[in-house]
């Protein structure tokens, strides 16, 4: 279970997020929405350890991970994708996913220099796990391609497969539908809810496509100018006057 307690983060004088709290249990899909610059990605960066919170704490399964190194937070069980796709150039699709398995792979530098039985066994185990996750997102047939040659939608899916290979307890998806066409968005929606049921982790989802967020989230948090302005079920959020104000602006004064 992930618990974010009263987290704040400033950059110089800019208060990127203030006093944000949320909890996510196994099987939850939590949507995070808000206008551009509301601090959604900053929140993800604080949870995944790219930034350290100025105030507040991030707790995963009872363990305080607020001040841990980024790679340790991943190993504790926070997987993520990026808003602007960040795949590894110079590696194939399968190798990209393997990179997420490699920190868990158990062989030493001696095995790295020679084809020892332990190395071969671990590489085989890793390849099977990674091929499984590629299969899950439906990308196994592209495993020997270079990611930069793939269409945008597949690159997004590859990022998800790579994040899954970290075997996360909480998966952070940062605008997974950005730049996708309507068919791809539908496929993605179906994939996210299927993953949540089958693998049973918590998913935090930043997304601008409201039909996607409203459709699959169990709970939604709304941020505006770094402050939480509302939380609740999709139905409650749709009705919330503060949310409408943040998205559509103040209602015109009555004439």
């Amino acid at each position, binding site marked *: 279970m992930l618990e974010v307690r009263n987290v704040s983060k400033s950059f110089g004088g800019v208060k990127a997020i203030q006093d944000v709290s949320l909890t996510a249990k196994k099987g939850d899909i939590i949507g995070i929405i808000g206008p551009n610059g509301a601090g959604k990605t900053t929140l993800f960066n604080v949870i*995944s*350890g*790219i930034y350290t919170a100025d105030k507040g704490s991030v707790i995963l399964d009872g363990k305080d991970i607020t001040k841990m*190194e*980024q*790679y340790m937070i*991943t*190993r504790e069980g926070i997987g*993520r994708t*990026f808003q602007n796709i*960040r*795949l*590894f*150039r*110079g*590696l194939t699709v399968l*190798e990209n996913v*393997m*990179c*997420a398995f*490699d*920190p*868990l*792979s158990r*062989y030493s*530098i001696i*095995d*790295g*220099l*020679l*084809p020892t039985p332990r*190395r071969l066994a*671990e*590489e085989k185990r*890793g390849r099977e796990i990674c091929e499984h996750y590629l299969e899950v997102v439906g990308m196994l047939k592209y495993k020997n391609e270079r990611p930069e040659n793939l269409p945008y939608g597949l690159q997004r899916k590859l990022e998800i497969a*790579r994040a899954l*290979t*970290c075997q996360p307890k909480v998966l952070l998806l940062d605008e997974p539908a950005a730049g996708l066409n309507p068919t791809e968005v539908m496929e993605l929606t179906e994939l996210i809810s299927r993953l949540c049921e089958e693998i049973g982790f918590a998913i935090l989802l930043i997304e601008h496509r409201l039909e996607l967020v409203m459709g699959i989230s169990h709970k939604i948090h709304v941020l505006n100018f770094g402050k939480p302005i509302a939380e609740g079920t999709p139905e409650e959020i749709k009705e919330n006057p503060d949310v409408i104000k943040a998205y559509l602006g103040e209602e015109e004064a009555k004439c």
Partner: protein
Amino acid sequence: MQFYISILTFTLISVIAVTGIYVLTGLTGMFSLGQAAFMAIGAYVSGFLVVKAGVPFVLAAIIAVVISVIVGYIVGLPTVRLRRDYISLVTLGFGEAITALLNQTQSITGGALGFSGIPKITTLPLALISAIVCIVLVSYLKNSKYGRQCIAARSDELAAKAMGINVPRIKMTAFLIAVAVTSYAGVLYAFFTTYVDPGIFGWKKSAEWVIMVFFGGVSSLTGSIFGTIILTALPEVLRFAADYRTVFYAVLVLLIINFKPTGLFGEYELSVGNLLRRLSGKKEERSNA
């Protein structure tokens, strides 16, 4: 004949050093302008142990490599956390400091006059076997989890960390492998020329290696080796036109950087499997046409 054997041995020693640079620059994307200093440490420590302390060659070589790795670890500690461009600066400073140190400690190292009287132990077969062993080990490394993590860290450090990769540690591993390989090349060098002086281990040597890797193909081990063989052997063969060879060398590098920035080989690795695939691919094209 002796002349060609000598060129060949020097080329092979360069190849050994460049396999290290390939791990550092090609795989991990770190530019070191002080790598030749580790060659100097390898050369001086092993030479000193054999000449002044009567230690057998093999043991001296091992001690020299171990000492280089320890020094490399100390230099690496603050360096691997830095951004790439700063790494070049730190290693440049370190490299020049080592050269200055060798020049100043005249009573021990002979200073600028050099350190001579090292027995001639390195032969062509020894250099050849060493080069092959280094190439094989590095090619295994490239395809291991270490190689993948190095490439991931080079490509996108932030994403690599987000995948659970301990980036400073993987950079340190790559750096120390490069240091070990380079200092071993230094050992072979000292016991081939029988004489070393600080002048040959300056930043120009380090820069030359980086150029060789880029010339052949920064993402290809076989490309880097090919680049080294051409760029080491060429100036020797062109010795009759000694006045113009650096000009020729410069033109060659400029042409490559301008017209094929990924180097001669790009990402292509020369191997039996790839060659066969290429040949059969060509055949298919032909039968399709």
